């Protein structure tokens, strides 16, 4: 009995110290795509180094779709997205009164990879990729010579991003022609390292994932050049070919979405300021293996943030063949 008052006091303290508004005000909550994560993490790290003790940033990985779910419920201030917001997500945001500003932050290329021992593939067309990946291919296209008849009669083993990722959404939209549609009989993983290991150890493999992962494992994998449908030329993925727009249709812009209401808090406003600071962002994006946008794009993004120009310039989810000048035009349109 003697100890009871202490216990009660402790309990009261715990309950009493509930979420302080001062605590919340200094916090920037970010969640979303794992593709955008390395860039946001780099900015967050720099931000914490400058404002340690004053502001706090948390970055989670829930995937583009999972991130938007939280964002549209108002649980996060910024959402990382490897594709533009979908119609259903826009409605969810509108229902909860969440207004947002769309800011493109970088360019990313998807690489199609084979084992280094594969000496027969030197270029793939979008049609061939479609033939391999479309839902109808399931159980039919299982050997290399079924894709192109002069290729060897070997099994074709497929590896790719899991269905929850924006990478999968974009790849299916660009190759199969419909977002989220593909064959199901391939090795799918959200963990790109699993795919790297799989392709590196299997001479009959073919797979796809983000260029950043290919760059780190270039000694274990062979990237396949993709024929650009417009120019008819075979283009290998690289920072340069993504930037100049020749590596199409497998390069895409990636975004952050900022909650307008959150921008009223100094913590969020100064975080976004730092994100779009042209002295810093170009180097950060390059460092983590992505293709930076021209400085002008970040200046425009900053302007859209400052003027609170809300909404999306990309209606209807993943869009194929968006070039850097398209992004600039889209940002101006807002």
């Amino acid at each position, binding site marked *: 009995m003697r100890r009871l008052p202490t216990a009660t006091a402790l309990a009261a*303290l715990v309950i009493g110290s*509930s979420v*302080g508004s001062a605590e919340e005000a200094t916090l920037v909550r970010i*969640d979303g795509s794992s593709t955008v994560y390395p860039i946001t993490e780099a900015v*967050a790290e720099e931000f914490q180094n400058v404002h340690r003790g004053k502001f*706090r940033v*948390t*970055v989670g990985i829930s995937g583009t779709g999972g991130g938007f779910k*939280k964002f549209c419920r108002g649980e996060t201030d910024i959402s990382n997205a490897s594709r533009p917001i979908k119609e259903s997500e826009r409605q969810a945001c509108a229902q909860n009164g969440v207004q947002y500003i769309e800011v493109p932050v970088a360019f990313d290329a998807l690489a199609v990879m084979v084992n280094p021992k594969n000496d027969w593939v030197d270029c793939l067309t979008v049609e061939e990729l479609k033939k391999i990946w479309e839902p109808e291919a399931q159980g039919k296209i299982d050997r290399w010579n079924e894709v192109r008849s002069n290729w060897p009669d070997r099994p074709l083993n497929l590896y790719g991003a899991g269905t929850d990722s924006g990478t999968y959404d974009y790849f299916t939209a660009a190759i199969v022609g419909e977002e989220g549609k593909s064959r199901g009989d391939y090795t799918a993983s959200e*963990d790109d390292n699993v795919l790297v290991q799989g392709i590196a150890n299997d001479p009959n493999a073919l797979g796809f994932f983000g260029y950043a992962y290919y760059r780190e494992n270039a000694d274990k994998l062979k990237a396949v050049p993709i024929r650009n449908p417009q120019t008819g030329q075979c283009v290998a993925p690289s920072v340069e070919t993504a930037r100049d727009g020749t590596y199409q249709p497998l390069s895409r812009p990636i975004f952050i979405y900022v909650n307008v209401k959150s921008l009223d808090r100094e913590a969020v406003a100064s975080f976004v300021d730092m994100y779009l600071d042209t002295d810093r962002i170009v180097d950060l994006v390059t460092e983590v293996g992505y293709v930076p946008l021209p400085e002008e794009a970040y200046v425009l993004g900053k302007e859209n943030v400052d003027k609170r120009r809300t909404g999306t310039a990309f209606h209807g989810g993943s869009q194929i063949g968006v070039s850097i000048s398209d992004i600039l035009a889209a940002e101006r349109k807002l």
Partner: protein
Amino acid sequence: MSLASRPTPGVDPVLLARIRRGRRSEFLFAAIGLLVLLIGIGTLFTLLVQLLLTGLPHIDLDFLTSYPSRRASQAGILSAWVGTCLVMLVTAAIAVPLGIAAGVYLEEYASDNLFTQIVEINISNLAGVPSIIYGLLALGLFVYAFGFGETILTAGLVLGLLIMPVVIVATREAIRSIPREVREGAYALGADKWQVTRMFILPAAKPGILTGVIVGMARAIGETAPLVTIGALTFIAFLPPPPFRAEFPWLSFDWLWSPFTVLPIQVFNWVSRPQTEFHELAAAAAVVLLALTLLMNAFAIWIRYRARRHLG
């Protein structure tokens, strides 16, 4: 006369052959057993050695006192190990008192009726529920319904619930193994039920209860799935507010409401990065996690040893 015709008196050759066969199969069984044991231990040993070889060179003071970074050479686990320790603290504060109290009640006080039987069946079942289910429960109940958010408090609560069945079962086993005489002797001296429980049953059951608590905590410290479900965050480069303050009331529980990350999540995050340097850091963080678990075990063994000596 017929006696002399037998080859070895008193032993039936059929029986002899059976005994020999029996010995052979016994030897064979022992050999298989040893082989299986060696496979198990060998795999574990190889894993440990590989983990230590990759991880150990990266562990130094900087690694323990730095925040995560995009540059592998500067990355550390400060926020992760502090988060793990704080979450474990909350977990223990929830699971230990509740678990022991429930165990004592079921064993000492509850009468054997339908209600008790239902509770008992449910506790045994709970011990086998996959941890991700606890994560879903916590997401719906703690994060949304109670509005606790993705905080240290929520993480501690879910892990506390997760290991509570283990603590309850261990408490009951420990109490059951106490000799009848202890209880009867105490009652004979005129002690009432609560006195018997407090002064005799609990002290005698302490070693067994502690073992259960440690088994539970060792499970909780490595759990990732329920924490990922409630939305534990991967990049955290700050510490929760300190538990002590200069002014009255000196203690502060603001840290309970802080966002957090823990070691298993940091390991998970580093393993899924493309750069091999981060994979090595993940091994280093795993070594630290292992060391924390061993430390916790050692602490429990020490308390248990003291408790036994005290009893003796």
